[in-house]
């Protein structure tokens, strides 16, 4: 079995570090008659017998021309894949249960259009692509995600039946691509925000009531907090400024492993936390995340949200 796996890897490996382009050469392309090809061949045999039996010279010619057309179709089917350059692209993270889309960049260096290229990952739906001559196109290979964590792109079968459908030409691709699958969120009410002036979080940093001056804008600050008038003084020489507030209910939401219902199993708690992170991000709150072994200090913004989701997704 192990030997078979080795053979399999040798046959179908990407033959690169998984990120460089590969070119489909003749060693990578397989071709066999399709079901309609077998039907066609059977029809030709019957037609040939008829032509012989009734001594139809033109019948012979027709059968031979059709056989020739079938052979040309085979060569053209092979040509439809031959010389394609495939480069692994990106794959945006998805939530478990959604469909991950692995992007491949397909480059057609020849002047002929490559039609009806069907990409299918092992479990997954096929995606069809046509690349015009000397053009590039992106194909997103859909793979359903089930569990949180890294989803490794399974072996992809790139096949085509173009032009006549009598032959299926195919090639196996195994680029080293993986997609981050976030845990499936579970919508539960957010825990109470602790209105604490946590030490080290900066005086009045997160308050929203009393104006306490300006500070330089950080990328994480929402645009609507920018003090446009103040920033525009001095002929626009100043950096963007953000109003700072002090006192009142300066809130920081601490999302902690312990806060999620301890009665549930681990996966459900991760789902609850994921739901909280999403909700907090939606409300543009300032929040921190504390997980067993990982602690993410409070912040806000999209990058912070992604970081939290990733930490949740990759919990052992």
């Amino acid at each position: 079995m192990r030997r078979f796996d080795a053979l399999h890897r040798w046959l179908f490996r990407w033959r690169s570090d998984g990120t460089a382009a590969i070119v489909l050469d003749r060693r990578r392309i397989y071709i066999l008659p399709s079901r309609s090809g077998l039907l066609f061949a059977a029809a030709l045999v019957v037609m040939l017998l008829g032509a012989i039996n009734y001594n139809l010279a033109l019948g012979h010619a027709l059968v031979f021309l059709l056989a020739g057309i079938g052979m040309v179709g085979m060569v053209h089917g092979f040509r439809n894949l031959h010389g394609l350059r495939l480069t692994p692209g990106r794959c945006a993270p998805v939530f478990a249960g959604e469909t991950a889309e692995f992007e491949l960049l397909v480059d057609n260096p020849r002047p002929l259009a490559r039609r009806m290229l069907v990409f299918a990952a092992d479990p997954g739906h096929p995606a069809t692509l046509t690349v015009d001559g000397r053009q590039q196109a992106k194909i997103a290979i859909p793979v359903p995600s089930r569990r949180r964590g890294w989803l490794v792109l399974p072996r992809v079968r790139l096949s085509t039946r173009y032009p006549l459908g009598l032959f299926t030409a195919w090639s196996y691709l195994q680029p080293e691509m993986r997609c981050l699958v976030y845990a499936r969120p579970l919508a539960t009410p957010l825990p109470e925000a602790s209105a604490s002036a946590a030490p080290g979080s900066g005086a009045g940093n997160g308050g929203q009531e009393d104006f306490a001056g300006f500070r330089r804008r950080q990328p994480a600050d929402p645009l609507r907090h920018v003090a446009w008038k103040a920033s525009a003084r001095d002929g626009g020489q100043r950096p963007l400024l953000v109003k700072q507030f002090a006192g009142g209910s300066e809130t920081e939401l601490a999302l902690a492993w312990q806060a999620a219902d301890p009665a549930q199993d681990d996966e459900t708690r991760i789902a609850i936390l994921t739901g909280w992170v999403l909700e907090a991000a939606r409300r543009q709150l300032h929040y921190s995340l504390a997980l067993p072994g990982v602690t993410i200090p409070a912040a806000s913004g999209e990058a912070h949200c992604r970081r939290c989701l990733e930490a949740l997704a990759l919990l052992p």
Partner: protein
Amino acid sequence: MSASDDLLSREEPPWLFAVALATTLPHTLHQPAWLSGLAGLLLAWAAWLWQRDQRLPGRWLLLPLAIGGCLAIVAEFGTLFGRDAGVAMLVLFMAMKLLEMRQRRDAIVVVMLGYFLLLTHYFHAQDIPTGLWLLLALWLVTAALIRLHAGRIGPGETLRYAGQIGLQALPLMLVLYLLFPRVGGPLWGLPQDAFQARSGLSESMSPGSIGELVRSGEIAFRVRFDGTPPARPLLYWRGPVLERYDGTSWQVWPQRRPAETIEALGPAIDYETTLEAHGQRWLLALDAAATLPAGATLDGRLSAQLAQPVEARRRFRLSSTPAYRLNRHEQPATLTANLALPPTGNPHTLALAARWRDEEKSPSGIVDRALRHFRNEPFHYTLQPPLLGRDAIDDFLFRSRRGFCEHYAAAFVVLMRAAGVPARVVTGYQGGEFNPLDGYLVVRQSEAHAWSEVWLAERGWVRVDPTAAVAPERIERGIAEALPAGEPLPLFIQRHADWLRGMRHRWEALNNAWNQRVIGFDAQRQRQLLADLGLPDADWRTLAIALSLAGAAALALIAALALRRQHRQPPALRLWLRAQRRIGVHCAPGETPLALAARLRRSDPASAEAFDPVVRLFLLARYAPTPNLYLAALRAAVARLPRRRSA
């Protein structure tokens, strides 16, 4: 493929309607009218549903329709199998499948049925127009198959691609056509309906039967002589010999005869004859047949016969000796049979013959006397003789005196027999027309003829053609010259249609080339071809090897055509390289065009003056947003460069 990909798109069904129409339409000429009507209705229904974008009918409607159609076919043909019933079933399936065409699978079945239906047209004709029509239909069917597998693609591109694939398939087709081992004859018994009624000579002759045949311009056979062809009056092509006369019609005597003895009096003439299918066994050899092809025999009356009826165009090699003596010593039984007359009837004829027998001393004198009679009395040669009464020979010889070759031959034989000279009627063809384009002698049904043979002691059976006595032009120059104007001859062979004749010669030479080279390529020609290629006595093993080698070569050619790389560089780059070659500089790796220009200004200021605009235009043509605007100027600038000094 997922389920949604397997459903047909909106643009695909019209292709399949066209496939169904193109492949079934020619069958309307041969199939029962109700079937054409039914298939047409089903096709129109499918197209209407498509046009209205409505759902196809369900099984509950299609199943009774299919069963009803099959029952009707059984009622029409008596079976569901066999050739014509099978074709009818295919047509019915094709039409019904259009109403069941939801998925790609169904459409592929329609295309395969279309390919199959193409073959069935050849049951009826294999001529050039059929070949051309079916080539067009094949193109369409292949385009439909491409359309089913190419996603979104325009009709023009589909057709162009189908044509390209067809052209690339030609070498492989040629290889297979020439080298695939040909099997002669049927693999299993041919059904009775494999052959249609054919026109040709029959084994009996009654007044008017040959006159009927003569009205047809169809070709009976073509002959190619190896050497000089014999003179036209010698071109007697012998069919059945009719010896039995019952008062109205002449028939072949079914009795077997001992083999004839033929003495050749001159050299033999070799020729090849290509018989059209006539449904009978007569070989129609030139008198007198000397060597026959395998499978053919003489029937004791010098008529060459084949073992099997000629049901398809066939080619034979023969030789004949136009000067011959036949059966100088004839069986007494044969002579008696050729003296027999019906016990009653034609009293005037018998009386005339009795008078001649008394007056002439020898049988040959009687023959001459009869020919003189035909020549001197006012006999007319016409295709439209008046009706004859019960004593037909009396009526013809003494009252109407108007008739056609069969009348003259019959009357002459009756006269001879009554005068005691053994005589018989020979039917066949006389003459023929040389096509000046390919040198073939074309013999038509209109050359059908009847003549006589008399048996004279020491000379054997001697041909006597009483028609020649009445209308010598018939033998010398052909039937169109012999008949008066206004006779109902086929348009093609009429006398004053010279412009038609030229066109006809061309068309027939083309058809003949098609028949001989394409249709007539059989096991024998294949062996000949291989012998010419240096593979004599090729058996199937040699053929298989030759076929594999040539097939692999053809496939390699196809692959080379399809997979050749296009190494063409962009035009601006090509011009840039040409400019460098022209003034003899080389852009070093890493050197920009501007740096090269600067270098050139230092080393060769004279060339640099002309080179500067080239550099400027090259950069524009290569990198400007609209590069094509500068190509013409760049080309002109490169052309203005001084030639490299021959250093």
